[in-house]
């Protein structure tokens, strides 16, 4: 699902891929994975010029200079080798220290933390480590696009559960309980949420934990946006009593320290679960890139100042875009995390794809149609506010003129 090409090479790759029929050699399980909705939209955007994009799932800040400098310095000193499968011990110790400090959760840096090539790898490892063929995994939607395919590839069955704007896109313990069958193995939590910006409060998490305990589920909690919360601090799911042993925490540096392209993340959990993930990781990936690990060490040691600055700036943009969208009549609940607004466009009578396609064609603003994040995202748009204030204001103006024209 990751789009791993530069703009130019991406363009040619997409053009030749358009009419691609699956090769007879391609495995059935891969053939059955539907094409990414984001991919389709991506192709459209590439054909146009002068587009303002609110479609981007990464910070518009460049990695802070002190982190880039640390990466460069590590290369100068000749750090270009493999590291331990688990990742550099110094990095794991820093991660452990931070979890103790921020969330009062104790992870042994020797056995309970695994450094991965981005959070995406960690998610894939977690699914493969947990899932036996036919196991069901509950996935609250709308959500990040890669969980469902990763679960399918691991031989599991994703069971989507719909969340709604009326409940601020929070999953409830009752909804989870209703979706549980004999085959249910695990639950995915991803809060603060991409694409909705929803967060779960501590009391929600406690209720979810009760269900998890009662039905003895494993939990994969993707908390990569944990630093980006507004008006309240994040609660780590494994800090809820009894949850640490059942939970794999996924996290990384992409969003908090603007390090997306460096591909660096980690997983934390019980020795047994992390051990199982490491077994796959050591054969599939060996270790995360050492340069990125060096950057991550610097980020944890000295990155808080720059991070706080970024968060404050996101918060201002968040208010700006939510206020702007609401004034245009596109109902938008107040997102409390990540850097996305998820307005409803139901008042226009258009589907998400119609609206987003028209907006792109007529006003050259790219947003991602909500339905690519799950069926219940239909009728919404994901607007990333990880873009400059000037661009946000310009984009809001263009959306207004699009709405005027289409009425």
């Amino acid at each position: 699902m990751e789009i791993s090409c530069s703009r130019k090479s991406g363009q040619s790759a997409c053009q030749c891929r358009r009419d691609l029929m699956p090769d007879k050699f391609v495995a059935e399980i891969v053939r059955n994975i539907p094409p990414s909705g984001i991919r389709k939209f991506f192709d459209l955007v590439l054909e146009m010029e002068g587009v303002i994009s609110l479609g981007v799932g990464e910070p518009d800040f460049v990695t802070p200079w002190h982190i880039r400098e640390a990466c460069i310095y590590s290369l100068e000193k000749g750090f270009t080798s493999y590291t331990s499968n688990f990742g550099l011990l110094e990095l794991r110790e820093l991660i452990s220290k931070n979890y103790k400090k921020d969330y009062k959760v104790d992870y042994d840096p020797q056995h309970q933390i695994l450094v991965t090539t981005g959070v995406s790898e960690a998610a894939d490892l977690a699914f493969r480590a947990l899932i036996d063929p036919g196991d069901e995994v509950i996935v609250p939607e709308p959500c990040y696009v890669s969980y469902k395919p990763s679960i399918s590839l691991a031989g599991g069955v994703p069971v989507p559960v719909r969340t709604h704007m009326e409940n601020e896109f929070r999953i409830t313990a009752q909804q989870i309980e209703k979706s549980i069958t004999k085959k249910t193995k695990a639950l995915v939590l991803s809060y603060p949420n991409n694409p909705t910006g929803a967060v779960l409060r501590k009391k929600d998490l406690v209720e979810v934990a009760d269900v998890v305990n009662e039905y003895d589920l494993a939990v994969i909690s993707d908390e990569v946006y944990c630093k980006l919360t507004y008006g309240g601090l994040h609660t780590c799911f494994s800090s809820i009593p009894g949850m640490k042993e059942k939970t794999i925490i996924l996290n990384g540096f992409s969003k908090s320290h603007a390090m997306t392209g460096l591909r660096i993340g980690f997983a934390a959990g019980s020795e047994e679960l992390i051990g199982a993930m490491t077994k796959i990781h050591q054969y599939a990936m060996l270790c995360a890139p050492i340069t990125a690990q060096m950057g991550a060490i610097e980020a944890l040691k000295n990155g808080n100042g720059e991070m706080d600055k970024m968060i404050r700036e996101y918060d201002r943009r968040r208010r700006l875009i939510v206020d702007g969208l609401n004034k245009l009549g596109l109902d938008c609940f107040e997102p409390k995390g990540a850097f996305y607004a998820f307005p409803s466009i139901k008042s226009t009578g258009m589907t998400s794809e119609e609206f987003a396609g028209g907006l792109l064609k007529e006003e050259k603003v790219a947003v991602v149609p909500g339905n690519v994040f799950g069926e219940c995202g239909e009728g919404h748009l994901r607007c990333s506010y990880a873009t400059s204030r000037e661009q946000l204001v310009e984009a809001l103006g263009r959306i207004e003129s699009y709405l005027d024209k289409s009425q």
Partner: protein
Amino acid sequence: MKEILEILENDPKIKPKEIAAMTGLTEAQVASKIKQMEKKGIIRKYKTVIDWEKAGEEYVYAIIELKVVLRSRTGYDAIAERIAKFPEVVSVRLISGGHDLSLTVRGKSMKEVAFFVAEKIATLEQVQGTVTHFVLRTYKQDGDILFEKERTERLPVSP
């Protein structure tokens, strides 16, 4: 209040309407807070950072370090204030180390700056000695890097 200042520090042209949206205050509240801060002198001035070289204007800048003999009681403030009144002087700072005051002076030519220092500054009774450093090139000014802006190509749409 700090929030408004942080926003204005980077973009003085931003409208109170936008600040209001970003801070959750009303437009009137924002406007009145800004007025207040202007009155109190917390907001001193709205300035534009200009790359004069790019505009084709030649300005010469020099950093001048001064050694000062203090007259009894008046202290550094008095001499600093006197020097600050020259429009050629862009900044005046009291510094630690081998010298006492550091000035930045702007002129149209090296000659003009050199004469200004020789005639107006070095001649001041309390000034014991001056060291003039001409600026050859400015790379960063008022927090703004004067190189080409860093441009990173993000993919226009990503998950």
